[in-house]
């Protein structure tokens, strides 16, 4: 089962912010982590993550820095900012409302009367 494009796009911001809230990271590793956590069901076109990261940076939720890794490869690392943590909290609350609404509907079963 592949997740629909719209849903992937909508969940991109909370996913990225959540991963970055664990510590700074770079694009390739963020994609790999989402892939692993979703059991391969959340398929991003890899390149599409970067415009999302740049948008979040423009909104000053995250910041970036070019740095050399231990293996000598140059990577752009992203780090969450205070505003980002705040935005993530807000996003979490919103997703919780959506999730609980759907769950109540699905758990009560279809109403046929």
């Amino acid at each position, binding site marked *: 089962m592949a997740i629909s494009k719209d849903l992937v796009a909508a969940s991109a911001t909370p996913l990225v912010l959540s991963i970055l809230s664990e510590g700074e990271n770079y694009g390739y590793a963020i994609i790999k982590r989402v892939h692993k956590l979703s059991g391969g069901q959340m398929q991003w076109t890899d390149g599409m993550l*970067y415009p999302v990261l740049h*948008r979040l940076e423009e909104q000053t939720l995250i910041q970036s820095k070019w740095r050399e890794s231990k293996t000598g*490869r140059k990577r752009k690392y992203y780090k969450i900012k205070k505003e980002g943590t705040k935005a993530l909290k807000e996003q979490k609350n919103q997703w919780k409302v959506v999730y609980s609404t759907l769950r109540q509907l699905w758990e009560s079963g279809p109403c046929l009367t």
Partner: protein
Amino acid sequence: MFDLNEKISTWRSNLAQSQALGSSDIDELESHLREEIESLKCIKLSDEEAFLIATYRLGDTARLSDEYAKINLGKRFRQNVSWMITGILTYLLAAHFATAISKGCVLLAANSGITGYRSLGFIGFGSQILTLITTFFLGYFICRSILQIPGFRKQIKELTTRMLLLTVLLVFLIMTVVFRAAFHIPVPGFRPMNIQQNVTQALTYTKFLWSIFLPVILVMLLINLRKPNSHGVKSQ
């Protein structure tokens, strides 16, 4: 023989054609691509296979450039506005330069015994044309060589038709006013008493026309630059 670095540099230059992607954006994508290729080679894929899969996963260049355009558009617009302001300042500089030259010419002419408002009027008109030409070439040179704006030649090409039309109209109007003054044909709305008034009037009209047309041209330029131009990229 498959040359991985050569393939990557072709892929890079393909992306660089898009105005939406800056060189730092492309660096970041390349870093991702190389990382993916490395990990694919770990599972015993050849360079060629790894490159093909990695570029496929990264996404079609045309779509990538569309996505980047959405983000970079605002940034680019602000950049363009700052170039515009630079342009206006350059124009003002050129205008002052031309005025200085024309004043010098008038002084030289007066000292050589050439007098008469008609000749002085023509010197003024000549200086305006000089300003136009100097500004255009100065601006073109700065944009091409110093600022190295990507896709500048294409932008100029797209603008040329509209700008040409406006310039022809502008020059025609200025010429009409100046020739009317030169040949003592009164300009509607004002009946000059002597040739001095006639020249003054012609110059006033010219300045008035400039003040109308300059903002119009600037607004047209801004509208034109606002359009996203992300389809200049070849699809892979």
